[in-house]
């Protein structure tokens, strides 16, 4: 449903609202015949429904259209950029999921003590800051003053895995900070609830060691809501990628959309956004699946 709505929005936003596409590309002084010819080549003089159908059915078959600016198929650009973004997002996720959960768990185990205050307040503060603000401050500290990390994410050609990783640390940090607060907060409140529950009390009273109680009984229940939050943050992460990739001049899907929007390259823009929508839908599905795997009370299928 979201995908369908998104596709309509993208289509309307990208193709209908700007008016005359040929005119927009060729400029106000171009010959009207040239404009008409271009519109005909691009197919934007057909009825709306036909355009939408043509576009969406081609997209499903992997044909994303031809870039207005590069005059070549869009798909390779989008796939390339998506791969780059995945790398960046993966680094941020690999860092933030364990550390965020750990932060929340530590905070909950030290409830209302100074350590909890520091983690909760600190997490809340960094979460509400725009990525480009934390990004700028981190660049200043680690890139300009300490000179530990490169200030741009564009690694040299043929860079190996670890070099790429080295270049990705700084860009992933702002994303890390924003997500850290959410994940730590969910993990914390999940833990508090689980620690407070009857089954935890029973486990303690039957004499299980504290470590076993935490690992076997508390954590598993506490982390369920956290997984949902992590999945919903994917959509958010994508918005963050647009900003971070622009700031660090990184060739990802975010900067692809940004550049396409600036250059009014509609096929590129539409394909980029729709691709993101698909990634988001898949992430939500994966989260539902993980949730049901981890939660013994929900079982999909007929193994009851």
């Amino acid at each position, binding site marked *: *449903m*979201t995908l*369908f*709505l*998104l596709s309509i*929005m*993208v289509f309307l*936003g*990208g193709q209908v*609202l*700007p008016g005359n596409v040929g005119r927009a590309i060729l400029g106000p002084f171009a010959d009207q015949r040239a404009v008409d010819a271009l519109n005909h080549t691009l197919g934007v003089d057909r009825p709306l429904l036909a355009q939408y159908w043509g576009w969406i059915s081609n997209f499903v078959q992997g044909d994303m259209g031809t870039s207005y600016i590069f005059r070549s198929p869009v798909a390779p650009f989008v796939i390339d950029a998506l791969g780059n973004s995945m790398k960046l997002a993966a680094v941020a996720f690999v860092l933030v999921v364990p550390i965020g959960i750990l932060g929340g768990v530590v905070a909950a185990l030290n409830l*209302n003590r100074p350590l*909890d*205050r520091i983690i*909760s*307040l600190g997490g*809340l*503060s960094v979460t*509400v*800051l*725009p*990525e*480009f*603000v934390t990004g*700028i*401050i981190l*660049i*200043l500290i680690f*890139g*300009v*003053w300490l000179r530990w990390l490169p*200030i741009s994410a564009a690694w040299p050609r043929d860079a190996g895995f670890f070099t790429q990783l080295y270049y990705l640390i700084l860009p992933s940090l702002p994303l890390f900070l924003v997500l850290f607060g959410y994940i730590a*907060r969910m993990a914390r409140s999940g833990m508090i609830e689980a620690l407070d529950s009857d089954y935890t009390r029973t486990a303690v009273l039957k004499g299980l060691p504290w470590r076993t109680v935490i690992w076997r009984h508390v954590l598993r229940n506490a982390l369920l809501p956290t997984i949902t939050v992590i999945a919903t943050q994917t*959509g*958010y992460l*994508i*918005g963050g990628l*647009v*900003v971070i990739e*622009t*700031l660090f001049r990184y060739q990802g899907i975010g900067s692809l*959309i*940004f550049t396409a*929007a*600036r250059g*009014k390259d509609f096929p590129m*823009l539409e394909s980029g*956004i729709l691709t*993101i*929508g698909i990634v*988001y839908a898949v992430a939500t599905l994966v989260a539902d699946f993980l949730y049901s795997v981890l939660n013994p009370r929900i079982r999909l299928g007929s193994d009851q």
Partner: protein
Amino acid sequence: MSTIQTTSSTPDDTRPRGPLAEVFFSLLRSRTFLVGFSIVLFWVACALFGEHFAPYDPLADDIINALAPPSSEHWFGTDQIGRDVFSRVIVGSRDILTVAPLATLLATVAGTALGLVTGYFRGLVDDVVSRILEAFMAIPVVIVALLAIVALGTSKTTVIVVIGLSFAPIIARTVRSAVLAERELDYVAAAQLRHESALHTMFVEILPNVIPPILVETTVRLGYAIFAVATLSFMGFGIQPPSPDWGLSISNNYGMIGGGFWWTVLFDALAIASLVIGVNLAADGVHGALND
């Protein structure tokens, strides 16, 4: 969030107070709220009267003194065409503090109306509208903004409308769940028995009772609106030059960051950070005061 709230109602106070006064005094006792509110107040003062106490004209260039590091003459240094960064940071609060609250206001009005209608009628209206709103919520604001701005062009109005409409579904969801609880109460049934119109029941009977959650959601959204406006300005899709807006200044100057001209971006970044944190602390205080 409730952990950092420091208030509790005083049991020894027996004087009768209206609910609004109660909330007001509870806010005054909240350290979180007071700290946040002071920061916001400071920036509002800068937005209103900044020109009168800024040492220089924020738009006046002075090429000879371009990119001067911070000194006693220019506290925060000067930017690439010699404009005083200190004065720009002070006056730079103006645009974001106009656009973000207006966007929040639009979101609140639209969201409240949608929430009342979906919560009150339920059924088919609710299903259809809620599905569409859910779909909208899944799309990041930055993406919606990109599309809208490509289609409609850049202006403050576009930014206000985009952010306002993107946030409306979130407020609608909050209002809807509050209305769902309210509509089961007797006063709603009484109004329906009196054959009051649906509009009257929604806006005159139910609305006053769902104000607290709306207020909380609005203050929280204001923080996100500032986040979004700053981000859009940084991307070049928000507030336009020659405004000394913070996000815009950072976007103009961060290209030279490798050259060590840290003062052209650091103070703007800190200004945004302080404003966003201030609004969020205040929102946390409001949340605490209304949920006591």
